[in-house]
């Protein structure tokens, strides 16, 4: 089992209490699997039903595979402009 680093921002960083999470990753894990693991952590109450996840700086679908070396980020509801 490997570990992936998940970047956090804004309200998510405050709720989880840090700028990153280290999440264990089984081979073949998807974005959906990652979110299931994250939902078990304290602070996960902040997450909406379908949080947006970016993999390598692009929005990812729930079925996208994740590798430990990917740049992964949880994207809170954006409010630019």
């Amino acid at each position, binding site marked *: 089992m490997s570990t992936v680093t998940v970047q956090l921002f*804004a*309200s998510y960083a405050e709720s989880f209490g840090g700028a990153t999470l280290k999440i264990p990753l089984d081979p073949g894990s998807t974005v959906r699997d990652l979110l299931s693991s994250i939902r078990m952590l304290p602070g996960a109450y902040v997450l909406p039903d379908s949080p947006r996840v970016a993999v390598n*700086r692009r929005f990812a679908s729930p079925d996208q595979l994740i590798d430990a070396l990917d740049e992964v*980020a949880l*994207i*809170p509801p*954006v*409010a*630019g*402009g």
Partner: protein
Amino acid sequence: MIRSAVVTREIDPTALIAEIQSNELGAISLFAGTVRDTNDGRPVTSLDYSAYTAMAESELAAILAEAADRFGVTVIVAEHRVGPLALGDVSVAIAAAHAHRAPALDCTRFVIDEIKQRVPIWKLEHYADGGREWVDPTQASGVARA
């Protein structure tokens, strides 16, 4: 000429106009977003914008490329500011030039609408009553769930 940037300095919309002005393109459309003094009736004193900068830059560039393709506009510049902003400061500016007004206007509208949907930038509002909230446009209240 297509250019976009996430910046920490002041944005000067007139500089964007000067950057894209040319004698061949008779229509320039400019959109500028500024820091408003209230949100949902609550007085705002200042804002902090933060970003996932690497992705914000790539998404902004992708939006401009899509706008260029969609509207046939080849001259677009866009800047979004992050960091602490005061009331009235320009947070975002988009300028597009075209031979005719419709593509220029459509282009700036498209770019700001897409920025609000998909550029990873977040807004922390500070209020006159001492409170602070992350703005969440997906919530009916307009702020993040506590």
